[in-house]
C-alpha cells in the first residue's frame, strides 16, 4: 500500500493483521504517527492515536472503530491494555500497527514489523 505526500512517501508492505514494532527507539514511529494524522486530514482512510490524544479525552474506540485501512497506536505503553477487545475484533480487517515496548498480557496474537525511515520516506514491512 502506497500512501504519503511529495514530502514523505509511505509504504505499508503488510497484509491485514496486528503488528508490533521492534523494541528500538528513534526509528521513525512518531514521525509515521504525524504523517498518518496529516493524511487522515487530507481524506485518506487511515487513523492514528497517541497518548496525548488520550490526555485530551479522545476515546481510542473512535480510532479503532473508524474503519480505517491503516491504524497506528503510538506510545501504547502509556495506555497499555486500552481497547484490546476492539483490537481483537478488527485486527483482521485492517493493518493495525502498535508502538509498544512492554507487551500487555491481554493483547491478541501479533506479528513483528519493522520500520525503515529515510529523509523523504517511511516503509513498514
Amino acid at each position, binding site marked *: 500500500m502506497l500512501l504519503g505526500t511529495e514530502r514523505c512517501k509511505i509504504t505499508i508492505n503488510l497484509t491485514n493483521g496486528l503488528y508490533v514494532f521492534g*523494541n528500538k*527507539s528513534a526509528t521513525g514511529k512518531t514521525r509515521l504517527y504525524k504523517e498518518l494524522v496529516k493524511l487522515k486530514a487530507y481524506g485518506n482512510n487511515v487513523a492514528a492515536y497517541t497518548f496525548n490524544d488520550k490526555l485530551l479525552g479522545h476515546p481510542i474506540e473512535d480510532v479503532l472503530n473508524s474503519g480505517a485501512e491503516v491504524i497506528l497506536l503510538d506510545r501504547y505503553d502509556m495506555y497499555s491494555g486500552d481497547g484490546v477487545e476492539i483490537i481483537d475484533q478488527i485486527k483482521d480487517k485492517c493493518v493495525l500497527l502498535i508502538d509498544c*515496548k512492554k507487551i500487555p498480557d491481554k493483547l491478541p496474537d501479533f506479528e513483528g514489523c519493522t520500520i525503515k525511515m529515510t529523509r523523504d520516506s517511511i516503509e513498514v514491512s
Partner: protein
Amino acid sequence: MLKIQFDDEVDLNTIECDAEKVFDNTKFVEDATVRTLIKSIEQGEYFDDVVFTDRFGHQLYLENLSTGCKAAIGVHLNPDKTIYLVECGLNARDAIINYCNTGSVVIEDNAISIRKLNDENICVELDGYLFTDVNRLNYYINDERPFKPDLERKGIEVITYVTGD
C-alpha cells in the same frame, strides 16, 4: 551514580511514567552526556538548546527527538526524579545505563542483556551494589539475582552509606 530498579518491585504511581512530559518540563543544559545520548540514540548531533541535527542532516526542534532520547536526557538532567523507561527501546535503555552517571530509572526485567557501548566504566546502583562494568551487571541480573552476588568478580562492590551525626 545511576540507580536502577525493576518495575515489578516499584509502585509506578510514585514515579515519573511520562518521559515526554518530564523532558518538556526540563531546563535544557547541554553537556558531553547530552551530546553522547543524542548521538547514540538518534544518530544525530546536538546543535543548540532549541534544535538538533538529525541523522539526515536536517535541523529539527528538540521536540522531534524520539521518546527514548527524551527519556535519556530527562534522566540525565533530573537526578532528583525516578523515571520509568517503559517507552524506551533497548537502544535507549542501553545508552542510559552506559552513559548516565546520575539519576534514577525503573526498567523492565525482560531478560534481554544490556549492550556494552564503549570501554568506559559505568556507575550504576542496583540492590545496594555499585556496578562499574556492564557485563558484570548483566551477570548479576541474569544469573545471580535475587541471591547474593559473587563480590570477588570484578565490576561490583557493596555501597556503604556513611551517615553523619
